[in-house]
């Protein structure tokens, strides 16, 4: 099943994922008795990514969004019935042979300071992808390429020989982005790129990403727990909960009229900077805490906290159904498809 594409001329499908599963073995020993349990971080996810779009992935802790990103990059092992990057089926290939993907799919990480090697200066950090994938370049050529990317991310030449700890969070994140774009990739996966930054800097980085997307015709996958940020940057949004996709759809539809009760609950929970509205807010709050991913609920993973859940929801996980421009997984959607 394919989510409907937004443009009239079918854009190229860059990524096709069917039934993606990610497991972790977790050490759950009791005293001396060794015991490992399987943590299903991602349970059977289906996803398509189209050229030029920004796909926002949003969810709370334990939803598996970071695991999803790492699995798509091939950083962690995963199982799937299909994992095709640029029409190349990588399901059977061991991660070490994903070489081609490494050039065209890059990643920007959450913590700007720890994603940069503290012992390397900015020039060495940004040029590392060049040294790895284009060993034929001379030092002069590398330096020139780095200067071009520095300019693109809004940094001056003076940072070239500085070290990460001398720079601010925002500057470090720009360097992380420069490192990601220097090979002119097609796709950039951003894993919570602004969450560790000051609020007054977040807008700068978000704008930078949007600008780069326009200039370089990038496709972005933007992962965040912050719904407002996701809303600003995405074309389509996917909502995850405990490793399962709850809803996927065009941004405007999803935020104005969500189909899934969990999406509605998320939107209700976000505090709005409007005192009068907030004070008189009387939305039902989700009860309880997020269940542990080690012990997920049966059937629909959300049923333990859902106001609309019934006995059927506890027994059987919902199948994916098409909504307007997207898909959702719910037995009792808010909007009938």
């Amino acid at each position, binding site marked *: 099943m394919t989510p409907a594409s937004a443009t009239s001329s079918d854009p190229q499908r860059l990524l096709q994922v069917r039934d993606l599963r990610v497991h972790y073995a977790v050490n759950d020993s009791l005293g001396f008795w060794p015991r490992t349990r399987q943590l299903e971080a991602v349970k059977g996810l289906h996803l398509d990514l189209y050229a030029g779009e920004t796909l926002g992935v949003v969810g*709370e*802790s334990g939803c598996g969004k970071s695991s999803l990103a790492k699995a798509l990059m091939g950083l962690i092992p995963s199982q799937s019935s299909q994992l095709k990057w640029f029409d190349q089926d990588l399901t059977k290939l061991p991660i070490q042979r994903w070489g081609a993907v490494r050039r065209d799919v890059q990643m920007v990480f959450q913590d700007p300071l720890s994603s940069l090697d503290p012992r390397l200066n900015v020039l060495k950090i940004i040029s590392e992808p060049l040294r790895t994938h284009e060993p034929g370049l001379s030092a002069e050529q590398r330096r020139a390429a780095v200067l071009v990317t520095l300019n693109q991310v809004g940094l001056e030449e003076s940072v070239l020989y500085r070290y990460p700890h001398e720079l*601010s969070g*925002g*500057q470090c994140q720009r360097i992380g982005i420069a490192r990601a774009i220097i090979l002119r990739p097609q796709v950039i996966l951003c894993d919570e790129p602004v969450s560790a930054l*000051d*609020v*007054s*800097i*977040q*807008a*700068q980085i*978000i*704008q930078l990403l949007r600008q780069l997307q326009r200039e370089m015709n990038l496709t972005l996958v933007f992962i965040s*727990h*912050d*719904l*407002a*940020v996701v*809303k*600003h940057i995405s074309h389509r949004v996917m909502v995850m909960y405990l490793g399962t996709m709850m809803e996927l759809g065009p941004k405007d539809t999803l*935020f104005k009229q969500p189909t899934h009760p969990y999406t509605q*609950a*998320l*939107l*209700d*929970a*976000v*505090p*709005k*900077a*409007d*005192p*009068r*509205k*907030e*004070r008189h*807010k009387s939305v039902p*709050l*989700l009860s*309880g*805490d*997020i269940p*542990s991913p080690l012990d997920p609920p049966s059937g629909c993973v959300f049923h333990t906290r859902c106001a609309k859940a019934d006995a059927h929801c506890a027994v059987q996980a919902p199948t994916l159904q098409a909504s307007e421009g997207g898909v959702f997984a719910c037995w009792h959607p808010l909007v009938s498809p």
Partner: protein
Amino acid sequence: MACATPWTRRTADVSTEKTLLDVNNLNVHFQTPEGELQAVRDVSFCLRPGETLGVVGESGSGKSQTMLAMMGLLANNARAEGQVLFRGENILNVPAAQLNRVRGPKLAMIFQDPMSSLNPFLTVERQMTEVLQIHQNTSRGQARAASLQMLEKLRIADPLRCLNSYPHQFSGGMRQRIMIAMALLSQPDVLIADEPTTALDVTVQAQIVALLRQLQQDHGTSIIMVTHDLGLVAGLSDQVMVMYGGRVMEHALADDIFYHTRHPYTRALLESVPRIEQADDALLAIPGMPPSLRSMPPGCPFAPRCARADHNCLVPAPLSLATDGAAAHRVACHHTGSTA
């Protein structure tokens, strides 16, 4: 000093007009190998019973240091000056014995990371009853009963099992609730919450906020909510104080801060943070970055990033009442005028 902000109560409770907490000209300095740095400059505010003050600021704004100074929890190389009056009695720079009569039982604080505030080696019961046994000399049995009652009031599931468990067995949201329970055991007059929900998921955050609101209604506790999230203070606060670079930029009633913003920083913040309720996608990013304590610009700390800055801003504007005489709306800016 009389409170500058008029008081609005949202509940029907009537309480005395006497201020609970009076902070006057609080300054905090740090001794570092690079010299003396000032983290907090001339902060003044007051708090009445049952009132909520939201303190908004980014990193380096001095908001947390202000609270730590009030609680006497500053680092060894820090020095606080000024006046912090609790019910008229100064608690700043007083000996520990005197401070401990207020700190804890009357003035409680909860922090961002509950895991580092809870002792991983003691059960929840031990940690909660300890508070009561030391401060109020209650017996172990009575303290246990009181703890149980508090957990039930906070609607914590299975409170008995909770008491016998260890902190690491709980989720972040649960631990934060336990922290709140511990802080509220001695029925403090003021609860200071320093970024209590920053590390929590948004649905859990909404629960904690609702909980705090409920507690305020039930007990009349005053709350100081320190956060970087303007949305969080919108629904919870009566008055809001915006800090930047160690100074107060704007201080007014919540409605005035949001609907009649006067300070360029507050306005810039409101316009640059993505908001879910905004219809369009326009974000106005603030150029530059928050100042580091080591290289604080002379004059107004926000001037380097402010669109309205001019040569006047080399001298910081004092925090004064807004020029059009609007009720108790204090702004520290030379170029104020309603920017709403």
